[in-house]
Protein backbone atom coordinates (compact mmCIF):
# COMPACT_ATOMS: atom_id res chain seq x y z
CA UNK A 1 0.00 0.00 0.00
CA UNK A 2 1.22 3.51 -0.74
CA UNK A 3 0.84 6.51 1.54
CA UNK A 4 -2.54 7.50 0.16
CA UNK A 5 -3.91 3.96 0.40
CA UNK A 6 -2.69 3.63 3.98
CA UNK A 7 -4.34 6.90 4.96
CA UNK A 8 -7.52 5.85 3.19
CA UNK A 9 -7.50 2.52 5.05
CA UNK A 10 -7.42 4.40 8.36
CA UNK A 11 -3.89 3.38 9.33
CA UNK A 12 -2.20 5.89 11.64
CA UNK A 13 0.70 6.76 9.34
CA UNK A 14 4.20 7.81 10.23
CA UNK A 15 6.30 9.98 7.96
CA UNK A 16 9.79 11.24 8.57
CA UNK A 17 12.14 13.52 6.75
CA UNK A 18 15.46 13.71 4.95
CA UNK A 19 17.26 17.01 4.46
CA UNK A 20 19.66 16.61 1.50
CA UNK A 21 23.23 17.75 2.23
CA UNK A 22 25.23 20.61 0.81
CA UNK A 23 27.28 18.53 -1.58
CA UNK A 24 26.95 15.12 -3.13
CA UNK A 25 27.47 12.99 -0.05
CA UNK A 26 23.90 11.68 0.06
CA UNK A 27 24.50 8.04 0.95
CA UNK A 28 24.72 8.49 4.75
CA UNK A 29 21.30 10.16 4.63
CA UNK A 30 19.81 7.37 2.54
CA UNK A 31 21.29 4.80 4.93
CA UNK A 32 19.83 6.66 7.89
CA UNK A 33 16.42 6.40 6.24
CA UNK A 34 16.94 2.73 5.36
CA UNK A 35 17.68 2.03 9.00
CA UNK A 36 14.09 3.02 9.95
CA UNK A 37 12.24 2.25 6.73
CA UNK A 38 10.25 -0.64 8.20
CA UNK A 39 8.69 1.67 10.78
CA UNK A 40 8.11 4.70 8.57
CA UNK A 41 5.53 4.89 5.78
CA UNK A 42 7.13 7.68 3.75
CA UNK A 43 10.01 10.14 3.87
CA UNK A 44 9.70 13.81 3.04
CA UNK A 45 12.62 15.22 1.13
CA UNK A 46 13.06 18.90 1.84
CA UNK A 47 13.59 21.42 -0.95
CA UNK A 48 16.63 23.59 -0.16
CA UNK A 49 15.45 23.83 3.43
CA UNK A 50 16.01 27.17 5.17
CA UNK A 51 16.82 28.62 1.72
CA UNK A 52 20.27 27.03 1.82
CA UNK A 53 21.69 25.75 -1.49
CA UNK A 54 21.87 21.95 -1.36
CA UNK A 55 21.43 18.76 -3.30
CA UNK A 56 18.00 18.65 -4.93
CA UNK A 57 14.84 17.19 -3.55
CA UNK A 58 13.79 15.42 -6.75
CA UNK A 59 17.05 13.48 -7.21
CA UNK A 60 16.99 12.44 -3.56
CA UNK A 61 13.35 11.37 -3.85
CA UNK A 62 14.28 9.12 -6.78
CA UNK A 63 17.16 7.57 -4.81
CA UNK A 64 14.72 6.69 -2.04
CA UNK A 65 12.45 4.92 -4.54
CA UNK A 66 15.43 2.91 -5.83
CA UNK A 67 16.09 1.77 -2.27
CA UNK A 68 12.50 0.69 -1.79
CA UNK A 69 11.24 3.69 0.17
CA UNK A 70 8.38 6.05 -0.57
CA UNK A 71 9.27 9.75 -0.86
CA UNK A 72 7.18 12.86 -0.30
CA UNK A 73 8.76 15.31 -2.72
CA UNK A 74 8.74 18.80 -1.22
CA UNK A 75 8.44 21.66 -3.63
CA UNK A 76 8.73 25.36 -2.81
CA UNK A 77 7.94 28.35 -5.02
CA UNK A 78 11.06 30.28 -4.03
CA UNK A 79 13.46 29.20 -6.76
CA UNK A 80 11.51 28.41 -9.91
CA UNK A 81 9.04 30.21 -12.12
CA UNK A 82 5.84 28.65 -13.39
CA UNK A 83 7.48 26.94 -16.36
CA UNK A 84 10.14 25.24 -14.24
CA UNK A 85 7.65 24.25 -11.52
CA UNK A 86 5.31 22.57 -13.99
CA UNK A 87 8.21 20.89 -15.76
CA UNK A 88 9.59 19.54 -12.47
CA UNK A 89 6.17 18.16 -11.60
CA UNK A 90 6.18 16.26 -14.89
CA UNK A 91 9.74 15.11 -14.19
CA UNK A 92 8.69 13.89 -10.74
CA UNK A 93 5.91 11.88 -12.32
CA UNK A 94 8.17 10.05 -14.80
CA UNK A 95 10.63 9.32 -11.98
CA UNK A 96 7.89 7.52 -10.08
CA UNK A 97 7.26 10.23 -7.49
CA UNK A 98 3.61 10.48 -6.56
CA UNK A 99 3.46 12.34 -3.25
CA UNK A 100 4.17 16.05 -3.62
CA UNK A 101 4.13 18.47 -0.71
CA UNK A 102 3.73 22.03 -1.92
CA UNK A 103 4.91 25.04 0.05
CA UNK A 104 5.49 28.72 -0.64
CA UNK A 105 8.99 28.46 0.86
CA UNK A 106 11.18 30.58 3.09
CA UNK A 107 12.45 33.87 1.72
CA UNK A 108 15.87 33.82 0.03
CA UNK A 109 17.31 36.39 2.45
CA UNK A 110 17.05 33.86 5.30
CA UNK A 111 19.45 31.42 3.66
CA UNK A 112 23.08 31.25 2.60
CA UNK A 113 22.56 33.03 -0.74
CA UNK A 114 20.72 36.14 0.46
CA UNK A 115 21.72 37.98 -2.74
CA UNK A 116 19.53 35.67 -4.84
CA UNK A 117 16.40 36.75 -6.65
CA UNK A 118 13.34 35.49 -4.75
CA UNK A 119 11.03 34.07 -7.42
CA UNK A 120 7.58 33.42 -5.89
CA UNK A 121 6.03 33.52 -9.36
CA UNK A 122 3.42 31.14 -7.92
CA UNK A 123 2.63 30.42 -4.27
CA UNK A 124 1.44 27.34 -2.37
CA UNK A 125 -2.20 27.87 -3.35
CA UNK A 126 -1.62 28.61 -7.02
CA UNK A 127 0.94 25.79 -7.43
CA UNK A 128 -1.50 23.31 -5.88
CA UNK A 129 -4.10 24.45 -8.38
CA UNK A 130 -1.63 24.12 -11.24
CA UNK A 131 -0.62 20.60 -10.11
CA UNK A 132 -4.31 19.65 -9.93
CA UNK A 133 -4.68 20.96 -13.48
CA UNK A 134 -1.78 18.83 -14.72
CA UNK A 135 -3.57 15.80 -13.24
CA UNK A 136 -6.52 16.70 -15.48
CA UNK A 137 -4.25 16.79 -18.51
CA UNK A 138 -3.82 20.54 -18.89
CA UNK A 139 -0.97 22.92 -18.21
CA UNK A 140 -1.79 26.18 -16.48
CA UNK A 141 -2.61 28.04 -19.68
CA UNK A 142 -4.88 25.24 -20.87
CA UNK A 143 -2.63 23.38 -23.31
CA UNK A 144 -3.15 19.61 -23.53
CA UNK A 145 -0.53 17.30 -22.05
CA UNK A 146 0.75 14.24 -23.87
CA UNK A 147 0.78 11.86 -20.92
CA UNK A 148 -0.93 12.85 -17.68
CA UNK A 149 0.73 12.72 -14.25
CA UNK A 150 -0.96 11.50 -11.10
CA UNK A 151 -0.10 13.00 -7.73
CA UNK A 152 -1.12 12.76 -4.10
CA UNK A 153 -0.91 16.43 -3.19
CA UNK A 154 -0.08 17.73 0.23
CA UNK A 155 0.50 21.05 1.96
CA UNK A 156 1.50 22.42 5.34
CA UNK A 157 -0.41 24.15 8.08
CA UNK A 158 0.76 25.78 11.28
CA UNK A 159 -1.61 25.04 14.21
CA UNK A 160 0.08 27.58 16.49
CA UNK A 161 -0.10 30.43 13.98
CA UNK A 162 -1.77 33.63 15.14
CA UNK A 163 -4.32 34.71 14.04
CA UNK A 164 -5.62 31.16 13.73
CA UNK A 165 -8.65 32.18 11.66
CA UNK A 166 -6.30 33.43 8.95
CA UNK A 167 -4.35 30.14 8.99
CA UNK A 168 -7.58 28.16 8.67
CA UNK A 169 -8.69 30.37 5.78
CA UNK A 170 -5.41 29.69 4.02
CA UNK A 171 -5.75 25.98 4.73
CA UNK A 172 -9.20 26.07 3.16
CA UNK A 173 -7.82 27.73 0.06
CA UNK A 174 -5.14 25.03 -0.21
CA UNK A 175 -7.81 22.33 0.04
CA UNK A 176 -9.89 23.97 -2.67
CA UNK A 177 -6.76 24.10 -4.82
CA UNK A 178 -6.21 20.35 -4.42
CA UNK A 179 -4.36 19.57 -1.16
CA UNK A 180 -5.46 16.16 0.14
CA UNK A 181 -3.13 15.81 3.11
CA UNK A 182 -1.45 18.22 5.50
CA UNK A 183 1.65 18.01 7.62
CA UNK A 184 1.77 20.46 10.49
CA UNK A 185 4.42 22.67 12.03
CA UNK A 186 5.98 21.15 15.17
CA UNK A 187 3.43 20.60 17.93
CA UNK A 188 4.38 20.84 21.61
CA UNK A 189 1.09 21.96 23.11
CA UNK A 190 -1.57 19.25 22.92
CA UNK A 191 -4.36 21.50 24.17
CA UNK A 192 -3.65 24.03 21.41
CA UNK A 193 -3.39 21.19 18.89
CA UNK A 194 -6.73 19.76 19.96
CA UNK A 195 -8.26 23.20 19.62
CA UNK A 196 -6.79 23.48 16.12
CA UNK A 197 -8.09 20.03 15.17
CA UNK A 198 -11.59 21.06 16.26
CA UNK A 199 -11.41 23.76 13.57
CA UNK A 200 -9.67 21.62 10.98
CA UNK A 201 -11.54 18.35 11.36
CA UNK A 202 -14.46 19.73 9.35
CA UNK A 203 -12.26 19.46 6.26
CA UNK A 204 -12.09 16.10 4.51
CA UNK A 205 -8.31 15.88 4.42
CA UNK A 206 -5.68 13.85 6.26
CA UNK A 207 -3.69 15.74 8.89
CA UNK A 208 -0.32 14.53 10.17
CA UNK A 209 0.82 16.22 13.38
CA UNK A 210 4.38 17.53 13.32
CA UNK A 211 7.03 16.29 15.76
CA UNK A 212 10.45 17.89 16.10
CA UNK A 213 12.83 16.16 18.51
CA UNK A 214 14.13 18.63 21.07
CA UNK A 215 17.91 18.43 21.37
CA UNK A 216 18.41 20.90 24.21
CA UNK A 217 16.73 23.62 26.24
CA UNK A 218 18.61 26.17 24.12
CA UNK A 219 17.08 24.76 20.95
CA UNK A 220 13.61 24.99 22.48
CA UNK A 221 14.17 28.60 23.48
CA UNK A 222 15.57 29.40 20.05
CA UNK A 223 12.49 27.97 18.37
CA UNK A 224 10.16 29.86 20.70
CA UNK A 225 11.89 33.08 19.77
CA UNK A 226 12.49 32.49 16.08
CA UNK A 227 10.22 29.89 14.54
CA UNK A 228 6.74 31.03 13.60
CA UNK A 229 3.92 29.06 15.21
CA UNK A 230 6.15 27.04 17.59
CA UNK A 231 5.63 27.26 21.33
CA UNK A 232 7.55 24.81 23.50
CA UNK A 233 6.00 24.92 27.00
CA UNK A 234 8.15 25.67 30.06
CA UNK A 235 7.77 22.14 31.40
CA UNK A 236 9.55 20.61 28.39
CA UNK A 237 12.24 23.29 28.44
CA UNK A 238 12.85 22.47 32.12
CA UNK A 239 12.97 18.74 31.45
CA UNK A 240 15.66 19.30 28.82
CA UNK A 241 17.53 21.84 30.97
CA UNK A 242 17.75 19.61 34.03
CA UNK A 243 18.79 16.44 32.14
CA UNK A 244 22.49 15.48 31.97
CA UNK A 245 23.91 15.93 28.49
CA UNK A 246 24.10 12.16 27.95
CA UNK A 247 20.46 11.74 29.08
CA UNK A 248 19.08 14.42 26.78
CA UNK A 249 18.21 12.02 23.92
CA UNK A 250 16.30 9.86 26.41
CA UNK A 251 14.33 12.83 27.73
CA UNK A 252 13.72 14.07 24.19
CA UNK A 253 12.37 10.65 23.20
CA UNK A 254 10.12 10.68 26.26
CA UNK A 255 8.70 14.12 25.36
CA UNK A 256 8.12 13.13 21.72
CA UNK A 257 6.40 9.90 22.80
CA UNK A 258 4.10 11.80 25.16
CA UNK A 259 3.10 14.14 22.33
CA UNK A 260 2.57 11.33 19.83
CA UNK A 261 0.37 9.39 22.26
CA UNK A 262 -1.63 12.55 22.84
CA UNK A 263 -2.08 13.14 19.12
CA UNK A 264 -3.07 9.58 18.30
CA UNK A 265 -6.79 10.02 18.70
CA UNK A 266 -6.82 13.44 17.13
CA UNK A 267 -5.32 13.17 13.65
CA UNK A 268 -4.43 10.78 10.80
CA UNK A 269 -0.77 10.31 11.62
CA UNK A 270 2.45 12.03 12.56
CA UNK A 271 5.31 13.61 10.71
CA UNK A 272 8.63 13.35 12.53
CA UNK A 273 11.32 15.90 11.66
CA UNK A 274 14.43 14.44 13.32
CA UNK A 275 16.82 17.24 12.21
CA UNK A 276 19.89 14.99 12.44
CA UNK A 277 18.58 12.73 15.21
CA UNK A 278 17.14 10.04 12.91
CA UNK A 279 18.89 7.38 14.99
CA UNK A 280 16.47 8.08 17.85
CA UNK A 281 13.34 7.72 15.72
CA UNK A 282 13.01 3.95 16.46
CA UNK A 283 13.14 4.72 20.20
CA UNK A 284 10.49 7.41 19.79
CA UNK A 285 8.22 5.02 17.91
CA UNK A 286 8.78 2.20 20.39
CA UNK A 287 8.05 4.50 23.33
CA UNK A 288 4.87 5.69 21.56
CA UNK A 289 3.62 2.13 21.13
CA UNK A 290 4.53 1.47 17.46
Amino acid at each position, binding site marked *: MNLEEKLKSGKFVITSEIGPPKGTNIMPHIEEAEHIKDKVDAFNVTDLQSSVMRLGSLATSRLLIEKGMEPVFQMTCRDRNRLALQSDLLSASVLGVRNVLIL*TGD*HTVLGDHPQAKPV*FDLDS*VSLLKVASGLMKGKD*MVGNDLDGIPDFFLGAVVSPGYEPQ*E*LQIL*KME*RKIEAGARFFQTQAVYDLVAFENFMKQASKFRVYILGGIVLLKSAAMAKFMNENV*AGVNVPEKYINMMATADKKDRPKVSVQIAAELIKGMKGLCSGIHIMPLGWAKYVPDVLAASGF
Partner: protein
Amino acid sequence: MLITEIKKKEDIIEIVKDKKVLVLKCYGCKEVYFPEEEIDSLLKEIKDYVKEIARFDYICREEFAEKYLRHLERVLKEIESVVVFSCGVGVQVVSKLIPCIPVIPGCDTHYINGFQGITSQDVDCQQCGECWLNITGGICPVTSCSKGLLNGPCGGARDGKCEINPEMDCGWVLIYQRLKKLREIEIIKKAAVNIRDYRLIIESGKGVKNES
Protein backbone atom coordinates in the same frame (compact mmCIF):
# COMPACT_ATOMS: atom_id res chain seq x y z
CA MET B 1 4.45 60.18 -16.28
CA LEU B 2 1.41 58.20 -15.24
CA ILE B 3 -0.26 55.45 -17.18
CA THR B 4 -3.39 53.90 -15.75
CA GLU B 5 -6.13 51.91 -17.34
CA ILE B 6 -9.71 51.68 -16.14
CA LYS B 7 -10.63 48.34 -14.59
CA LYS B 8 -13.17 46.15 -16.34
CA LYS B 9 -16.48 47.99 -16.29
CA GLU B 10 -18.46 44.92 -15.28
CA ASP B 11 -16.18 44.27 -12.32
CA ILE B 12 -16.64 47.76 -10.93
CA ILE B 13 -20.38 47.69 -11.53
CA GLU B 14 -20.59 44.33 -9.75
CA ILE B 15 -18.87 45.79 -6.68
CA VAL B 16 -20.76 49.08 -6.44
CA LYS B 17 -24.25 48.09 -7.54
CA ASP B 18 -26.98 48.72 -4.98
CA LYS B 19 -24.53 50.58 -2.76
CA LYS B 20 -24.17 54.25 -1.98
CA VAL B 21 -20.87 55.24 -3.51
CA LEU B 22 -18.48 58.14 -3.25
CA VAL B 23 -16.26 58.58 -6.31
CA LEU B 24 -12.86 60.24 -6.03
CA LYS B 25 -10.95 61.27 -9.13
CA CYS B 26 -7.34 62.39 -8.99
CA TYR B 27 -5.93 64.81 -11.54
CA GLY B 28 -2.62 65.48 -9.83
CA CYS B 29 -0.07 64.21 -12.30
CA LYS B 30 0.25 65.46 -15.82
CA GLU B 31 -0.68 62.14 -17.21
CA VAL B 32 0.34 60.62 -20.44
CA TYR B 33 -2.68 58.44 -20.08
CA PHE B 34 -5.46 58.78 -17.55
CA PRO B 35 -8.67 57.21 -18.88
CA GLU B 36 -10.86 60.26 -18.33
CA GLU B 37 -13.45 59.54 -21.00
CA GLU B 38 -13.88 55.93 -19.95
CA ILE B 39 -14.26 56.99 -16.33
CA ASP B 40 -16.97 59.50 -17.22
CA SER B 41 -18.82 56.98 -19.33
CA LEU B 42 -18.67 54.44 -16.50
CA LEU B 43 -19.90 57.02 -14.03
CA LYS B 44 -22.92 57.62 -16.25
CA GLU B 45 -23.75 53.94 -16.04
CA ILE B 46 -23.53 53.80 -12.28
CA LYS B 47 -25.01 57.22 -11.62
CA ASP B 48 -27.90 55.75 -9.62
CA TYR B 49 -25.49 54.55 -6.96
CA VAL B 50 -23.15 57.52 -6.94
CA LYS B 51 -23.84 59.86 -4.06
CA GLU B 52 -21.08 62.31 -4.86
CA ILE B 53 -18.10 62.77 -7.14
CA ALA B 54 -15.08 64.67 -5.87
CA ARG B 55 -12.04 65.78 -7.81
CA PHE B 56 -8.58 65.95 -6.28
CA ASP B 57 -5.03 66.85 -7.03
CA TYR B 58 -2.28 64.61 -5.66
CA ILE B 59 -4.44 62.37 -3.53
CA CYS B 60 -1.26 60.31 -2.99
CA ARG B 61 -0.07 63.03 -0.63
CA GLU B 62 -1.49 62.01 2.72
CA GLU B 63 -1.86 65.48 4.19
CA PHE B 64 -3.71 66.71 1.10
CA ALA B 65 -5.96 63.66 1.08
CA GLU B 66 -6.75 64.09 4.74
CA LYS B 67 -7.84 67.70 4.18
CA TYR B 68 -9.94 66.78 1.17
CA LEU B 69 -11.63 63.98 3.04
CA ARG B 70 -12.37 66.27 5.98
CA HIS B 71 -14.52 68.36 3.63
CA LEU B 72 -16.38 65.21 2.71
CA GLU B 73 -17.06 64.11 6.29
CA ARG B 74 -20.84 64.39 5.91
CA VAL B 75 -20.83 62.31 2.71
CA LEU B 76 -18.55 59.69 4.24
CA LYS B 77 -21.17 59.02 6.89
CA GLU B 78 -23.77 58.25 4.25
CA ILE B 79 -21.89 56.09 1.78
CA GLU B 80 -21.00 52.38 1.80
CA SER B 81 -18.12 52.27 -0.62
CA VAL B 82 -15.51 54.57 -2.18
CA VAL B 83 -14.26 54.15 -5.72
CA VAL B 84 -10.95 55.90 -6.36
CA PHE B 85 -9.72 56.67 -9.84
CA SER B 86 -6.03 57.28 -9.27
CA CYS B 87 -2.76 55.40 -9.21
CA GLY B 88 -2.28 52.57 -6.69
CA VAL B 89 -0.64 54.86 -4.16
CA GLY B 90 -3.68 57.16 -4.09
CA VAL B 91 -6.05 54.25 -3.46
CA GLN B 92 -3.94 52.99 -0.57
CA VAL B 93 -3.66 56.42 1.01
CA VAL B 94 -7.45 56.82 0.95
CA SER B 95 -8.02 53.32 2.36
CA LYS B 96 -5.58 54.05 5.16
CA LEU B 97 -7.40 57.26 6.07
CA ILE B 98 -10.86 55.66 6.08
CA PRO B 99 -10.19 52.08 7.21
CA CYS B 100 -13.83 51.35 8.02
CA ILE B 101 -15.17 51.91 4.51
CA PRO B 102 -14.29 49.61 1.59
CA VAL B 103 -12.09 51.48 -0.88
CA ILE B 104 -12.12 50.14 -4.43
CA PRO B 105 -9.53 50.96 -7.08
CA GLY B 106 -11.10 52.12 -10.34
CA CYS B 107 -7.88 51.78 -12.28
CA ASP B 108 -4.98 49.42 -12.84
CA THR B 109 -1.67 51.25 -12.55
CA HIS B 110 0.94 50.45 -15.18
CA TYR B 111 3.45 53.24 -14.81
CA ILE B 112 4.13 56.01 -12.31
CA ASN B 113 7.85 56.43 -12.76
CA GLY B 114 9.13 59.89 -12.08
CA PHE B 115 6.55 60.66 -9.44
CA GLN B 116 7.72 58.67 -6.47
CA GLY B 117 9.11 61.05 -3.90
CA ILE B 118 6.20 63.42 -3.72
CA THR B 119 3.88 60.54 -2.86
CA SER B 120 3.27 58.80 0.43
CA GLN B 121 6.28 57.25 2.12
CA ASP B 122 4.17 54.59 3.82
CA VAL B 123 2.55 52.88 0.89
CA ASP B 124 3.93 51.93 -2.44
CA CYS B 125 2.67 50.88 -5.85
CA GLN B 126 4.78 48.57 -7.96
CA GLN B 127 2.76 49.29 -11.08
CA CYS B 128 1.85 45.65 -11.59
CA GLY B 129 -0.91 46.68 -13.95
CA GLU B 130 -3.65 44.61 -12.28
CA CYS B 131 -4.67 46.35 -9.07
CA TRP B 132 -5.58 43.90 -6.26
CA LEU B 133 -6.68 46.50 -3.72
CA ASN B 134 -10.38 45.72 -4.18
CA ILE B 135 -9.87 42.22 -2.72
CA THR B 136 -7.35 43.12 -0.04
CA GLY B 137 -9.05 45.87 1.93
CA GLY B 138 -7.02 48.58 0.20
CA ILE B 139 -3.64 47.21 1.36
CA CYS B 140 -1.37 46.14 -1.47
CA PRO B 141 -0.20 42.49 -1.22
CA VAL B 142 2.49 43.03 -3.85
CA THR B 143 4.29 45.75 -1.91
CA SER B 144 3.34 44.96 1.70
CA CYS B 145 4.22 41.22 1.57
CA SER B 146 7.94 40.50 1.16
CA LYS B 147 7.07 37.64 -1.19
CA GLY B 148 4.30 39.53 -2.97
CA LEU B 149 1.86 36.70 -2.22
CA LEU B 150 -1.63 37.06 -3.69
CA ASN B 151 -3.45 34.15 -2.05
CA GLY B 152 -2.91 34.65 1.66
CA PRO B 153 0.01 34.70 4.07
CA CYS B 154 2.95 32.31 4.18
CA GLY B 155 3.53 30.59 7.51
CA GLY B 156 6.54 32.72 8.38
CA ALA B 157 5.03 35.64 10.29
CA ARG B 158 5.56 35.84 14.06
CA ASP B 159 3.46 38.16 16.18
CA GLY B 160 2.26 39.78 12.96
CA LYS B 161 5.79 40.59 11.81
CA CYS B 162 7.45 39.43 8.58
CA GLU B 163 9.92 36.53 8.64
CA ILE B 164 12.60 38.60 6.94
CA ASN B 165 12.37 41.64 9.18
CA PRO B 166 10.86 41.81 12.68
CA GLU B 167 10.36 45.56 12.22
CA MET B 168 8.11 45.01 9.23
CA ASP B 169 4.41 44.18 9.60
CA CYS B 170 3.19 41.08 7.78
CA GLY B 171 1.15 42.51 4.91
CA TRP B 172 -1.35 39.66 5.06
CA VAL B 173 -1.98 40.08 8.77
CA LEU B 174 -2.69 43.76 8.03
CA ILE B 175 -5.01 42.76 5.19
CA TYR B 176 -6.77 40.28 7.48
CA GLN B 177 -7.23 42.89 10.21
CA ARG B 178 -8.53 45.46 7.73
CA LEU B 179 -10.97 43.00 6.17
CA LYS B 180 -12.18 42.07 9.67
CA LYS B 181 -12.80 45.73 10.39
CA LEU B 182 -14.69 46.06 7.11
CA ARG B 183 -16.59 42.83 7.88
CA GLU B 184 -15.44 41.51 4.53
CA ILE B 185 -13.33 38.54 5.63
CA GLU B 186 -15.35 36.35 3.27
CA ILE B 187 -13.47 38.00 0.42
CA ILE B 188 -10.40 35.87 1.21
CA LYS B 189 -12.48 32.71 1.09
CA LYS B 190 -14.28 33.59 -2.10
CA ALA B 191 -11.37 35.06 -4.03
CA ALA B 192 -10.20 33.27 -7.16
CA VAL B 193 -6.71 31.76 -7.10
CA ASN B 194 -4.74 34.80 -8.14
CA ILE B 195 -1.70 34.65 -10.39
CA ARG B 196 0.23 37.63 -11.75
CA ASP B 197 0.41 38.47 -15.45
CA TYR B 198 3.89 39.87 -15.92
CA ARG B 199 3.09 41.14 -19.40
CA LEU B 200 1.21 44.01 -17.78
CA ILE B 201 4.35 45.59 -16.41
CA ILE B 202 5.74 48.42 -18.46
CA GLU B 203 9.48 48.23 -18.15
CA SER B 204 11.24 51.44 -17.33
CA GLY B 205 12.93 52.89 -20.38
CA LYS B 206 10.82 50.94 -22.84
CA GLY B 207 7.67 52.91 -22.18
CA VAL B 208 5.51 50.26 -23.79
CA LYS B 209 3.68 47.19 -22.57
CA ASN B 210 5.38 43.86 -23.19
CA GLU B 211 2.77 42.55 -25.59
CA SER B 212 3.60 38.98 -26.53
